């Protein structure tokens, strides 16, 4: 033992020479390994668990574990590419420029694909037409690709049943029916594709008795005919809403559904954004009976009955002509032309138009040629041609003329038609005389349909040649003259379908193998299209010398524009004779107008669950059409008290029987603000009978209630009778029950002006003093800014009184995400709502769940009426999670499932959520959504899955529909809360891009789905800390406010107050 005193010591025990320590220090292995004691037999014998027992336990344990592990646990394998395609990087989206075309509906798009499957439609900013915007219809179209009920192969009808055949057999069969003398009819809605039209021509060349019958169920034939007569050009003109300071619309819903709403909305909104330093904005006046989307965006609405529309146009013309010079037109309806209050308003309107000569634009949705000629004349005397209307870049989006259908029916009846090829048209559903059509159609020997899904007309065909979905096809479109657009496939055909152009080609060629023989290879139509463009489109430009580079550029951009100048339009029509032929004002007590809804079109979108579940922007109803009545309507046109406007029983509404044209239908009523007395309105496109499940028996089909006018054009209004039923609708699916935000009216039986909200809710200021919506007249912007600033600074003063100060700088570092929404730019078109559903895998829940207020939409568009109760203005407010920096939802969650990111995002952790719904209760904006039932079929047992509209499988239960899911976004299971995430997956992607490129994140790196969908640029998203960024710039406007600022939740979504430009002189 060494002397420890002189040595190195490591602790006090070294110094004290404690015997126990010395004992320990002297032995190298003071504590023997446990093995020694185990090896000791005596020890082992004594121990309660001996070695043998240990082995027994071990053996049993291992055996049991193996037994358990060998039970079949399903393994889902993700198989990596053996040879990875160059264009696909797993986890990285690829975008392809393409076009959404359905009849005349057009949108230039970018298709987002992930791992080779298209999952999302984005707007194409290169487009000269849609300017990067999209419509709800375009957004939803990607779901049609994955529709499990698409026609899956060619078929022939045998004994009233379709039997699958192969393409070769079909081609042979069809060809055998074609001979040189065959009377072939192609029945189609508007076709935008120049290359496809070339085939029609070729077909006509080969079979000279071929005719192409083009009609549009929502027809603009009157405009075509009027332009033929007035200008000698049967085309829709190029309306330039961006150049008009004064827009008047006679029942033309150009922001919602008329011709090219995405383009028009983008153009119109350019003059609607307000600069507070120089407050000025264009004016929009809409003359209509029911509240349309455009009407809801109007500064003034003039209410006229549908039968008064025509004479209102002539009346306005004469008043304008008196001011700017022009011959007066005969007014055949005399002094009864228009109702009294509308007359006064129209007089005032004439003054405004005259004052805005050259800067005004008058459009009409009327399908009466005579009315359209007067409109042309009116635009002519207002010098609109050359300023706000031109024929260069004329629109081709409606080319149909019902006259052709009438002729076709006559021919079919007489049995002279040998073959009808249906190119997506559905005349057995969407014609007023569809029954007559069906009867005549049966007399045609060969009836072929290109339809993608079964419809009413296709069901009567004897051959099916199903077309590819547009996302599986090559193609082109010319929506406006000189504006070309390409369609490229983003996925191989999912089924045994063939694109219709190719089918037609196969039937044209004498040689069966022609297409392939001609060296077109495995993408025959690609080569044909290329050749067509090389021959026809390429020569129109001079920028590119080589066709290859031209083609690659156009394919990349998706669009190509040739500037062309049309000769100045010279009006050569006879307005006077037209005016003398307009319809008489009806003396019927009630009139109905039928309108195209924003989502359903003419019914061709009825099979799309996303569009069915998209609330109608104005009525806020889903899954059906509803009869819009005046708010005071109770079945007998008696006055109803304002109290009833605040609906207190859920899911109930009255039913009414509507009788028009000796047909009747029982339709649920939705009282609508702004609906004219003694008129009702109802949307078209519902009540499909043969359609994929989502559209089946939703609503009522009202096409048969329309009729043809004297010119043989469809007239979208009728005299009618409305009788309230004693039964009530118990499944009224409306997502908003309270509709007003400060409307005023006169008290029953007196002239006293009252606050209607007060009457409804019994409390003064209970609505109007809420800091949710602000609105002001453009002339009062200065005062308004002062008022708003005062109110906001008071709120901020209150917020400074917090018990927990000192957190003001929390988000000053790094990113601080924020959104800005301009309520002046928002038209309420709901493209963002559908885009959000597509991007974020928001489930569709069906009508029953929506009427129980279980809808799942992360982004809704609140619609409030303000102003005069009988003729109100409307403000739309997109409402989604406000990502409060002081979020009330976060602190109440017992398990911290929702929390705040360092970048100001309110995050939702689905895995952690136990579903107490406390966060939803405590959300002042009520934007949190709970998975009440198993909407996504994520539960392990299928017993609680419900089909949404009578399908075989619940929505999203099959693997095909699930292909539309965004792989970056979790599919939520039953029992968890979900909500807007500010598209956190896109934020993450943008951050990674910026990081990879070693730079600061810029505006364009992150755009939310709602932002890219918006046709008017109302939504801007970005980093609030980036002072140069778009969102910071937008947030500087003194018109901005936060909704409910004074409750100190510190929201991150800023709204710009709604500024309107109402002319109160029109109200008198």
């Amino acid at each position: 033992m060494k002397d420890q005193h002189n040595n190195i010591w490591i602790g006090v025990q070294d110094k004290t020479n404690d015997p126990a320590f010395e004992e320990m220090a002297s032995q190298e292995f003071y504590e023997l390994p446990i093995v020694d004691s185990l090896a000791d037999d005596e020890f082992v014998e004594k121990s309660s668990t001996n070695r043998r027992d240990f082995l027994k336990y071990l053996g049993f344990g291992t055996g049991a574990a193996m037994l358990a592990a060998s039970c079949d646990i399903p393994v889902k394998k993700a198989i990596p590419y053996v040879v990875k395609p160059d264009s696909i990087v797993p986890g990285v989206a690829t975008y392809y420029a393409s076009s959404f075309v359905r009849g005349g509906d057009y949108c230039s798009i970018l298709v987002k694909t992930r791992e080779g499957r298209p999952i999302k439609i984005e707007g194409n900013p290169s487009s000269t037409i849609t300017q990067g915007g999209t419509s709800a219809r375009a957004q939803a179209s990607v779901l049609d690709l994955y529709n499990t009920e698409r026609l899956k192969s060619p078929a022939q009808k045998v004994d009233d049943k379709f039997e699958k055949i192969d393409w070769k057999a079909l081609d042979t069969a069809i060809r055998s029916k074609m001979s040189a003398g065959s009377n072939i009819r192609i029945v189609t809605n508007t076709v935008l594709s120049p290359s496809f039209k070339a085939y029609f021509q070729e077909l006509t060349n080969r079979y000279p008795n071929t005719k192409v019958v083009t009609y549009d169920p929502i027809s603009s034939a009157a405009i075509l005919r009027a332009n033929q007569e007035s200008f000698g050009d049967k085309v829709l003109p190029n309306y330039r809403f961006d150049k008009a300071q004064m827009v008047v619309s006679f029942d033309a819903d150009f922001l919602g559904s008329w011709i090219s709403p995405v383009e028009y909305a983008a153009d119109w909104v350019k003059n609607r954004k307000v600069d507070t330093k120089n407050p000025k904005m264009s004016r929009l006046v809409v003359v209509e009976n029911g509240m349309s989307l455009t009407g809801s965006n109007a500064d003034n609405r003039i209410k006229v009955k549908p039968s008064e529309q025509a004479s209102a146009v002539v009346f306005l013309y004469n008043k304008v002509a008196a001011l700017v010079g022009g011959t007066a037109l005969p007014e055949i309806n005399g002094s009864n032309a228009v109702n009294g209050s509308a007359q006064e308003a129209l007089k005032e309107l004439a003054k405004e138009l005259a004052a805005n000569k050259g800067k005004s634009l008058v459009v009409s949705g009327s399908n009466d040629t005579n009315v359209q000629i007067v409109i042309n004349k009116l635009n002519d005397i207002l010098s609109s041609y050359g300023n706000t209307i031109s024929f260069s870049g004329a629109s081709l989006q409606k080319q149909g003329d019902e006259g052709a259908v009438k002729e076709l029916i006559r021919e079919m009846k007489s049995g002279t038609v040998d073959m009808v090829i249906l190119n997506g048209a559905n005349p057995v559903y969407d014609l007023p005389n569809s029954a007559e059509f069906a009867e005549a159609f049966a007399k045609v020997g060969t009836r072929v349909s290109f339809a993608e899904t079964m419809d009413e007309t296709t069901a009567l065909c004897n051959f099916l040649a199903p077309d590819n979905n547009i996302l599986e096809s090559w193609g082109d479109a010319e929506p406006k003259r000189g504006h070309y657009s390409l369609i490229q496939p983003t996925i191989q055909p999912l089924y045994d379908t063939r694109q219709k152009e190719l089918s037609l080609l196969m039937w044209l060629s004498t040689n069966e193998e022609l297409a392939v023989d001609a060296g077109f290879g495995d993408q025959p139509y690609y080569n044909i299209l290329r050749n067509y463009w090389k021959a026809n489109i390429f020569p129109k430009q001079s920028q590119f010398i080589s066709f290859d580079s031209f083609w690659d550029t156009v394919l990349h951009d998706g669009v190509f524009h040739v500037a062309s100048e049309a000769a100045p339009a010279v009006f050569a029509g006879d307005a006077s004779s037209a005016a003398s032929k307009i319809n008489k004002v009806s003396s019927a007590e009630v009139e109905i107008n039928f309108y195209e809804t924003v989502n359903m079109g003419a019914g061709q979108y009825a099979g799309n669950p996303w569009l069915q579940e998209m609330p109608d922007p104005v009525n806020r109803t889903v899954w059906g059409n509803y009869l819009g009545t005046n708010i005071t309507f109770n079945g007998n046109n008696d006055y109803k008290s304002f109290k009833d406007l605040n609906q207190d029983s859920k899911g109930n509404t009255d039913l009414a029987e509507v009788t028009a044209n000796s047909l009747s239908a029982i339709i649920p009523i939705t009282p609508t603000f702004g609906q004219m007395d003694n008129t009702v309105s109802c949307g078209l496109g519902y009540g499909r009978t043969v359609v994929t499940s989502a559209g089946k028996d939703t609503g009522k089909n009202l096409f048969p209630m329309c009729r043809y006018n004297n010119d043989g054009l469809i007239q979208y209004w009728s005299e009618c009778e409305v009788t309230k039923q004693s039964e009530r609708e118990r499944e009224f699916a409306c997502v908003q029950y309270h509709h007003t935000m400060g409307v005023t009216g006169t008290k029953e039986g007196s002239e006293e002006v009252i606050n209607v909200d007060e009457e409804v809710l019994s409390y003064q200021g209970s609505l109007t003093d809420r800091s949710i919506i602000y609105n002001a007249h453009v002339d009062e912007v200065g005062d308004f800014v002062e008022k708003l600033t005062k109110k906001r600074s008071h709120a901020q003063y209150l917020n400074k009184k917090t018990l927990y100060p000192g957190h003001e700088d929390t988000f000053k570092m790094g990113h601080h995400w924020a959104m800005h929404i301009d309520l002046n730019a928002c038209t309420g078109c709901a493209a963002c709502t559908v885009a959000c559903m597509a991007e974020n895998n928001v489930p569709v829940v069906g009508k029953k769940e929506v009427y129980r207020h279980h809808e799942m939409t992360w982004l809704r568009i609140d619609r409030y009426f303000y102003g005069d109760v009988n003729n109100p203005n409307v403000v739309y407010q997109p409402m989604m999670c406000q990502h409060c920096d002081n979020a009330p939802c976060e602190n109440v969650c017992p398990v911290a499932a929702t929390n705040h990111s360092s970048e100001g995002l309110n995050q939702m952790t689905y895995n952690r959520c136990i579903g107490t719904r406390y966060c939803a209760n405590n959300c002042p904006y009520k934007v949190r959504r709970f998975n009440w039932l198993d909407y996504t079929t994520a539960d392990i047992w299928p017993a609680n899955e419900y089909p949404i509209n009578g399908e075989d499988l619940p929505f999203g239960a099959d693997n095909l529909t699930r292909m539309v899911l965004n792989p970056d976004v979790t599919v939520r299971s039953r029992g968890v809360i979900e909500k807007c995430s500010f598209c956190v997956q896109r934020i993450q992607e943008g951050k990674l891009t910026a990081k990879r490129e070693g730079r600061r994140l810029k505006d364009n790196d992150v755009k939310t789905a709602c932002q890219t969908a918006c046709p008017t640029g109302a939504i801007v998203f970005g980093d609030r800390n980036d002072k140069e960024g778009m969102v910071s710039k937008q947030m500087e406007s003194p018109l901005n406010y936060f909704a409910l600022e004074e409750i100190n939740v510190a929201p991150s979504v800023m709204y710009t107050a709604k500024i309107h430009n109402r002319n109160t002189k029109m109200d008198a």
Partner: protein
Amino acid sequence: MSAVVSPIREPLVNGSKTYHQITEDICSPTERTPSPAWIAAFIVAVACLSFGVACILWTIWQGIGTWDLNRTIGWGWDITNFVWWVGIGHAGTLISAILLLFRQKWRTGVNRAAEAMTIFAVICAALFPGIHMGRIWLSFFVLPYPNTRGPLWVNFNSPLLWDVFAISTYFTVSLLFWYTGLVPDFATVRDRARGFRKKFYNFLSFGWTGKAKHWQRWESLSLILAGLATPLVLSVHTIVSFDFATSVIPGWHTTIFPPYFVAGAIFSGFAMVQTLMLITRKVLKLEDYITVAHIESMNKVILLTGTIVGVAYLTELFIAWYSGYVYEQFAFYNRAAGIYWWSYFGMMACNVLSPQIFWVKKFRRSIFVTFFMSIFVNIGMWFERFVIIATTLARDYLPSAWSYYVPTWVEIGIFIGTLGIFFTFYLIFVRVAPVVAIAEIKSILKSAGDQYTGPEAHRKKKEAEQVH
């Protein structure tokens, strides 16, 4: 219980009971075969319980979508029932703990049953936070336990989490308190029993032999538990009220909620005690132990707390007006005159107006009036919770989101089920345990028995002596 009692004070034990008679009277219900009335009641209760269980299973199997809650109204009958039952569970502990500390002798007649009721009510209440969850199978997430997720802890800021602690603590302490009181009484039953019952009660009484040391420890434990339970009476409903008071929703965001909820809870708890005791004393013939004096005392508490609640309602309305805050003003206007006006009316009528008849002594002492009043109060208090929850949520900040709510049969079924659970337990309780605390009633016999106190004490004592 050594306080001096005024001879004018009403006796709390009638019928000139001797100690043995007390034992006989109170133990006998557990020794007889059940009466047809008991059997009928038990069948009904178990039927309700089974239906409730079926509804709960259906909810768990299908999802909360079987209820008619919606995107705007996230809580309805579930949390209404939760708060209602928790409220009912307040009287027991108040009687046993606070009244013990205040040396209120009349508590001895009713404390056992009231404590039992507390426990059963808390069980019913505790069901709802569980089944109202979207994913009940993950309900263990609310427990702060070390875990491998980080570890990921619960959110200590959340009032729902405070509820978890408050309710579980309350339940534990109430159960201990109740059981502690039962131990000597179980021993009494054991001493009278034979065979299996003897073994059973021997086990339940932990081998109590009645030694002085046992009594000493028992007294200390009772006092300690009373001390622990006293703050709980105030804290539980305070914390339940935080579920609402800490939110930002106008109509919930109110500082008055804690005292108002506690008063309401005592109010409804006493009403439920009255309902149960009036039936129990009649059926089990315990009129001598649960006297009209007891009933009157409880009616006084109901009158007091009912009036406190009424003042709270009026204060809310005043503050809403006085605040000048539109949302708050609208919220309260809407409560009284909005879509659910009838529930506000029911609440006001049952909770504030009807108890005022107890200013009249005749009504306070009327069994009939008391019984109906106790039912009224229970209905009124249920409405109060419904008003606070459903009416408030149905009309909050954004008019676009306003909605309406009516329960489905599943929600109603679950409520009926909890009534079934409550009564099933209570019926078993009256068969198994002495409904009145034997030991405690004996302890007050000399100071509050009718032989010793009250205007006719002298005569009664004589009579009693003659009998023996």
